């Protein structure tokens, strides 16, 4: 039945239903949809993510991160800054001393999570990160970033369960191996039995790169390698390793003789660059000695997961003091396969 003004009353009925409905909503949020934000928060989907955090097992000291810097390298907006911890002798410890994430730069892409071989960095879902300062307040430091595995299990149960299962399987595998070869990845392993080529003095007749030249550490290393390979004869002093260390912004630890490895000769190891692919790195070491080839097969992150840095591990394998070829975690299966191949080629396996 239609009459003039029927629609008006139908409209009144609709609004009345909605008005009354809000008082009988009882949390279904069908009629009263508002979340009163600071007090009520909508449940987040498990896969929601905000910014990365670092996972630790048990206590914050037992963090999973080994300061391998893969995430720092891979991070597209370069918002991660890592400095590896060293003891008073300068020996690298397998944990970061500084781990900063600038959340004003972070674009929440999760690439750091995907590249991390240690399951150490994960995406948080805490979105309440606003601060009063635009600069320092928006940089998260190591203590802010560290969160327990329990917290990880709480916010992302499915993902965390899978990660826990994977880590457990790895630990069991390692334990089995450990019966034949104790403490494969123990950090207490004596570092680098084989002495590395020591850049005691810079070769004469090299172009000096002025220390205030606007180059990054990588560019500097590459330039140095290029210049020395080209053999451009000039006079002057070479770039000292300490100077290189200083320009990289890392804590300029005065390297004592006790830590023989870790620093490239002035010529540099041009393959010592995690940005290069495996085939590119292998091209660079075609004519190099075995140790260099082995080193080039590794992931070049100096992560110390094996107990050495890349140079040290390569030298140890070449010297025969290290027989386990599967210790390079960032390199994963690719590196292990390549190392085996190289050792076979050299007739040492």
């Amino acid at each position, binding site marked *: 039945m239609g009459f*003039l003004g029927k629609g008006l009353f139908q*409209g*009144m009925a609709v609004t*009345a239903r909605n008005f009354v409905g809000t008082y009988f909503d009882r949390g279904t949020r069908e009629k*009263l949809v508002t979340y009163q934000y600071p007090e009520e928060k909508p449940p987040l989907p498990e896969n929601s993510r905000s910014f990365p955090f670092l996972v630790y097992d048990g206590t914050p000291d037992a963090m999973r991160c080994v300061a391998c810097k893969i995430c720092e390298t891979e991070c597209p907006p370069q918002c991660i800054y890592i400095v590896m911890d060293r003891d008073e002798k300068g020996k690298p410890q397998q944990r970061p001393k500084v781990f900063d994430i600038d959340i004003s730069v972070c674009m929440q892409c999760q690439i750091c999570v995907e590249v991390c071989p240690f399951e150490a960095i994960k995406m948080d879902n805490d979105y309440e990160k606003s601060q009063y300062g635009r600069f320092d307040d928006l940089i998260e430091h190591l203590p802010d970033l560290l969160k327990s595995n329990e917290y990880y299990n709480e916010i992302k149960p499915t993902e965390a369960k899978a990660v826990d299962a994977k880590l457990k399987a790895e630990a069991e595998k390692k334990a089995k191996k450990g019966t034949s070869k104790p403490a494969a990845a123990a950090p207490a392993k004596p570092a680098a039995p084989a002495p590395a080529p020591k850049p005691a003095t810079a070769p004469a007749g090299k172009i000096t790169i002025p220390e205030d030249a606007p180059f990054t550490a990588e560019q500097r290393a590459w330039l140095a390698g290029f210049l020395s390979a080209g053999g451009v004869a000039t006079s002057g002093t070479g770039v000292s390793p300490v100077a290189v260390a200083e320009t990289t912004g890392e804590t300029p630890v005065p390297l004592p003789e006790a830590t023989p490895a870790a620093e490239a000769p002035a010529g540099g190891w041009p393959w010592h660059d995690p940005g290069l692919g495996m085939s590119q790195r292998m091209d660079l070491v075609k004519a190099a000695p075995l140790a260099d080839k082995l080193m080039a097969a590794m992931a070049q992150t100096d992560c110390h997961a094996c107990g050495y840095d890349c140079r040290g591990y390569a030298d140890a394998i070449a010297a025969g003091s290290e027989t386990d070829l599967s210790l390079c975690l960032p390199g994963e299966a690719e590196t292990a396969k390549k190392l085996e191949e190289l050792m076979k080629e050299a007739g040492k396996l």
Partner: protein
Amino acid sequence: METIYQLIAGWFAGKPEWLPLAIAIAVPILFIVGVYPAIFAYTTLVERKALGRVQNRYGPNRVGRWGILQPLADGLKLLTKEDIVPRDADKFTHFLAPVIAVIPSVLLFAIVPIAPGLVPVNLNIGILFAFAISTASVLALFMGGWASRNKFSLLGAMRAVAQVVSYEVPMVLAAVAVVMAAGSLSTLDIVKAQTRGGLEIAGWFVFQPWGFVGFVLFAIGAMAESARTPFDIPEAESEIIAGYHTEYSGFKFALFQLGEYLAAIAMAGITVTMFLGGYLGPGIHIPYIGGFIAAFWFFLKLGCMILLNIWIRGTWPRVRVDQLMGFAWKVLLPMSILNIAVVGLWHFMGNKVLAWGVTAAILGLAFVILAKISAAGNIEKRTYRYAN
């Protein structure tokens, strides 16, 4: 006023003669100035909360429990805002307009009775006074729009004048029907004319066919007069920003709001008085507390009318200018004129049951015919100049 004077005159024997008179004058003034603005303040809160619920959200609920202090916060905010007057504005008129907007609205309450014998001023021309005063509020709107020297303000003011003048006509004619039935222009007499039965409900004019039609006509007119949705084209923010109060900020804006809401509340009070039996209701004849019960019924009915206004505001869309005018002149005006004739018929028919049926039939038939006519006018085949 008179009731209060008679009540207290005996207490002041031996005192100066003017003292009881002054008190009798002061009490209603204080009541109007104190109670109705408080009702206004909480009407804004209730309105915002109810509109929120209609739109599936909470209304204001942050200032105090249930947002109970929200009107206070609004007032403080408006008080501390910068008062901006346009450079080219007519400054004196611009200043005067919001003041004038409030005065007629406050004056309207003078003739609204809240209990038996309790009306601020028992004018024998009460209803006439109400219309004379309420029309004056359009002056304030036009002053504000004109003085702002802003085309949107002026457009809003022009619309306001056209609308108020148009809707005044059916509204007054609807009131004429009531005046005819009650035989008096005094609001107290109009309420008394609705007395019937022990419960004091059956006699309300709204329960008679002509009274119901008159009630609808008057309520529509009152809504249009106070420029409330769906008749808020004078301040249609999607078309002309805020109409006549575009150029007003701070407390002047608050005064405009106050005037508008007070007018709406006063109109609701007059509607209650004329059609819903005013203060009449069960229990008003109980000795001693009957007066309070009567006041309770009055304010309950007033609240219901205000809620109806809010409900309508939350539901209906704004009418277009041409629809607005067409509705007033083509539908409301014929109905109200017919309504006057029907009241005459009602008055002269002895058998009230028969009269009820006859008048209802006449008015129903008229409504159907008007509906057909206006519907026929609306269905127009659209022609396109270039698309065909």
